[in-house]
């Protein structure tokens, strides 16, 4: 998975959230680049250099150059330790570096830069940064610049997110389920339709990546082998099954509100020998007995 993420070159956008953090994947990609012999420049805004280098062995650490924007990014201390020119100048300095050879630039994080710089300026600088292989006329075509940008999705609106997304050759959105992280990867290969892939993974303590097949199944409680399994249909107070005679009686039963032809006949013709029912009515003084049928004027 790491090779495919680094294969296209250009900007690789890692979109994470508070629940599914992306710094571990960023460090795994950095380790991969360093092991391939690339020099890695890290613009560190969110964590200190010691914290970032934790977990890497000395071989990897020797290939990492950490540009510290964490300690005093806005020059509040005025001790002269801050990077001159602030975050924008630090970013532009990365564009101007003239080291030969393939290089990876990691931005930890793009969110911090986006909160402190205008979106257009940041996008233009990123564009310059990730297109450097075409800027240096004498560099061999095989030398690519990888720019890895960590972006915290929840901090930005759809406009800036969309702008950064359009600059990225590869976009990884981190999520997960049941404690297992997943990456939804969007590849934008030139002159091809974008392709998607979803990969479940976990990052080991040494920042190597282990692929997983999917989220773990919810753990089933094992049935206790000592208790015999009971038949739940014993000791019921009602019948679950019908005998043949009971089934026949049930099928031949006429339901009380079912209107069958027998019922109709029974209602229409009184039984032989049974007196017909009579209604005896004594009209009141106020009764108006009109023999006319009130429906006569209806034209039906």
């Amino acid at each position, binding site marked *: 998975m790491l090779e495919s993420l680094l294969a296209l070159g250009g900007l690789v956008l890692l979109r994470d*959230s*508070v629940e599914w953090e992306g710094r571990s994947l960023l460090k795994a990609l950095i380790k991969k680049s360093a092991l391939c012999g690339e020099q890695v420049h890290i613009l560190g805004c*969110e964590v*200190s250099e010691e914290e970032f280098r934790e977990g890497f062995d000395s071989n990897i650490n020797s290939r990492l150059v950490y540009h510290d924007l*964490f*300690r005093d990014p*806005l020059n509040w201390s005025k001790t002269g330790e801050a990077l001159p020119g602030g975050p924008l100048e630090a970013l532009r300095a990365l564009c101007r570096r003239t080291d030969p050879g393939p290089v990876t630039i990691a931005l930890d994080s793009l969110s911090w830069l986006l*909160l402190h710089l205008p979106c257009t300026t940041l996008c233009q600088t990123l564009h310059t940064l990730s297109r450097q292989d075409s800027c240096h006329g004498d560099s061999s075509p095989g030398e690519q610049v990888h720019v890895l940008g960590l972006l915290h999705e*929840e901090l930005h609106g759809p406009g800036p997110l969309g702008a950064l997304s359009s600059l990225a050759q590869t976009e990884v959105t981190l999520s997960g389920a049941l404690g297992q992280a997943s990456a939804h990867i969007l590849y934008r290969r030139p002159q091809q339709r974008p392709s998607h892939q979803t990969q479940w993974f976990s990052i080991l303590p040494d920042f190597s990546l282990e692929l997983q097949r999917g989220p773990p199944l919810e753990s089933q409680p094992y049935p206790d082998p000592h208790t015999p399994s009971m038949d739940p249909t014993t000791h019921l107070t009602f019948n679950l099954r019908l005998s043949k005679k009971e089934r026949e009686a049930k099928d031949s039963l006429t339901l009380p509100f079912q209107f069958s032809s027998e019922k109709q006949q029974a209602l229409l013709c009184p039984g032989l020998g049974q007196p017909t029912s009579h209604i005896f009515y004594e009209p009141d003084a106020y009764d108006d007995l009109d023999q006319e049928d009130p429906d006569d004027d209806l034209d039906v």
Partner: protein
Amino acid sequence: MFPELNNLLNTTPDQVEQGKLTLLCDAKTDGSFLVHHFLSFYLKANCKVCFVALIQSFSHYNIVGQKLGVSLTTARECGQLVFLEGLKSAVDVFFRPQEEPHPLQFLREANSGNLQPLYEFVQEALKPMDSGEAAWRCPVLLVDDLSVLLSLGVGAVAVLDFVHYCRATVCREWKGNVVALVHDSGDAEDEENDILLNGLGHQSHLILRAEGLATGFCKDVHGQPKGSS
């Protein structure tokens, strides 16, 4: 302090983790009990505490502190506690010359700048003593709360920068702790507060969230705590 919370976090005043940013968050309930817990916890743990108290008066915190076994008055007198009483000193900003820096200087500015004066106040309060011998275990910054800064006109990015600098100095350089309370506006769609809450969520080592019960208010059980790191 609440022993149940100590058990939940697997910590005691004798074993204090250092270099951590703890985010306290409340949604549909009052999370101030967490602030009182950590205030009494760190005072009992013999840490030097700088408390930026923007919500209540000193006497309020003192009364609650006494019920939890600490005296803020004593702690302040012996230098263990540096207390910024926001409600009182907010008025002082307007009655002193503008040249003198004040931690709540932003209240006076037309367009809210940054919280650098507040950071410098914290830095001055918690910087290690030059004598070399540490009288207190580690410095702790406690803020109650950060959401009110947004209501006072400070931008979310400025508050995040303030916490960033506190983290760099107090947590990283001086191996101390920072504890801050932020309210979760929930469905209120407060963009600035959401940026602040999520931005701090990414920076924090531990997030303690107090939520109101889904079924509503209950006399004896007010909510449920949730922790993630």
